[in-house]
């Protein structure tokens, strides 16, 4: 191991939730069958790469998934990450708590200077794994980052809070979760794709991690029992016509809501 400082990006592959969705036998299928790199994690990776360019961090991406996920992970290398690890053999139905426990074992063994990850995944929108991991590690965390810089050996994170932006400084090591409003993740270039084929990708069973046996045998504490289509909103009336018609329809619509204070 060199003395180079490392940012570990924890990423996940998800279905392409922005493609069309259909149900079959209680399961959800998307029109694009290819999994994608979770958009929030892509923002995390982009930010790690920008910090790497400015400060010389080594960027390592870790993903929990089946062997097939190596393809998605390869995209992260093509974007510019230096190295990647795929952790295979996660227990069936692993929830945020199980994922955070597995990642915690990996992070402790790996010893990065910072963990940067998406604030949630675009499929489940749960958003718990980040701070669970930070708590397991006993590290300071900052969530929902919309800006990250490194100064005086500290991470300075601008986080979007409920009614203000908070600027928080943390010493290393620390954990940061990213909004996808932080940046626009780069598209891999042809050169990046070629280079990615030579970059190290480690595939490792979760059972090989410290505490591995219990990591793969602990059942998840939350279970997704069923998925059902959301009751769709029905399409209402669509009004076209001259300005007077449109304004009349609007005034009527607004007057139907007492809170607007518009009289019928």
């Amino acid at each position: 191991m060199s003395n180079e400082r490392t940012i570990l990006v924890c990423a996940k592959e998800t279905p392409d939730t922005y493609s069309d969705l259909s149900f079959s036998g209680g399961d959800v299928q998307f029109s694009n069958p290819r999994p994608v790199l979770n958009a929030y994690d892509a923002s995390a990776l982009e930010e790690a790469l920008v910090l790497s360019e400015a400060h010389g961090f080594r960027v390592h991406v870790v993903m929990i998934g089946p062997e097939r996920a190596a393809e998605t992970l390869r995209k992260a290398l093509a974007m510019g990450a230096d190295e990647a690890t795929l952790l295979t053999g996660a227990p069936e139905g692993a929830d945020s708590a199980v994922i955070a426990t597995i990642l915690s074992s990996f992070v402790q063994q790996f010893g990065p200077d910072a963990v940067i990850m998406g604030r949630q995944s675009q499929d489940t929108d749960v958003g718990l794994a980040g701070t669970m991991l930070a708590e397991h590690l006993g590290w300071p965390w900052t969530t929902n980052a919309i800006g990250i810089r490194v100064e005086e050996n500290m991470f300075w994170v601008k986080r979007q809070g409920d009614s203000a932006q908070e600027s928080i400084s943390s010493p290393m090591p620390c954990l940061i979760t990213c909004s996808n409003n932080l940046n626009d993740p780069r598209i891999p270039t042809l050169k990046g794709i070629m280079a990615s084929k030579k970059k190290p990708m480690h595939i490792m069973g979760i059972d090989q991690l410290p505490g591995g046996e219990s990591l793969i045998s602990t059942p998840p504490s939350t279970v997704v029992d069923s998925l059902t289509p959301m009751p769709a909103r029905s399409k209402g009336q669509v009004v076209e016509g001259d300005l007077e018609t449109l304004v009349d329809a609007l005034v009527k619509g607004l007057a139907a809501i007492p809170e607007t204070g518009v009289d019928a």
Partner: protein
Amino acid sequence: MRVCAVIPCFQQELRSSALEVLTKSYSLAMSLGEQSSGAQSSGEQSSGEKAQVEAWLIGPEAETHQAKAAQYGASILRLMNLEVDADQGGVKVSLGRRWVDAIDEIMTQSTSELNSEGDASDSTLLLFDNTELTKDILGACGARLGAPVIADVVDLSWDGKQCIAQRPTYASKVMSKVITSGSVCLCSIRAGLFEPEEHPVDATTHHYSAPTTDALGQVLQALVAPEGDTVDLTEAPIIVGVGRGISDETGKELVAKLAELIQGEIAISRAHFESGMYSHTLLVGQSGKVVAPRLYLALGISGSIQHVAGMSESHTIIAINKDPDAPIFEIADVGIVGDLYQILPALNQALESKKDE
């Protein structure tokens, strides 16, 4: 059995999402009470334990909100002041780690009090609202307490053992039923879905001191609060959503005027996140705030999946867009096809003349 509403107390006014959490806590406790009395009348052995509604009032304004918590059904109030790390223009914020320590401390202290009073409870449900504050700590709280967590639920039942929640997933296109069980469970509930109801009770108050938090070197250096009102969008009954269709100062003024006339708060889609025309705190969508107002008036918003995920639970949606094929019209109750720069001046004038009548 304990149902505990965790209420951040940083402002003079209690958020309506906090009242929703109290209301949901009360109704869960009541349904538990019915279950246990039903068991008794059928002759079965039952502990007869009634579920207690607790409000954990945490923050510098904890004292202020005691009366309100009791008014909304909390019979046990647990108060803790919390060190504020930054205070800017009335916006106060504490580091997430202080929150986790505070909740952990109240959990430990209250459990040992109940045990020593011979009132030990075998199961506890902690309910949170779904603000950024909660999102910053919920996972860490679950990990600290060793308790399962279900985030962002729109419906919830609990029998003291099992917690069954409904939560939207896949950009709010799918409802996921999630089940967990544990002696302690944590849930955050989405704002705008549970109508706050008053259930006045006599409450007993317990005070706790905030534990000493090791911030691990972390410092909240500064707060940038938006100018003017810091109203929280998740509270607003009327929201005027602004998308790409509004592109300049003239448009912004028209929108401001309309918002004033219909007592609405302005929100933005991601198209305006980087335009600099509006504050970032106003973002609604999968990556911003999730809102469910009485009325969402969408101005020049196309209706991307990410934006719709943040507002599809609105009671009524009215949309104006010049593109008749805009996806927003698929979910709008009233869709108006036309040019905002023509419609808004005429609409504002019509609304003003109605006011003058």
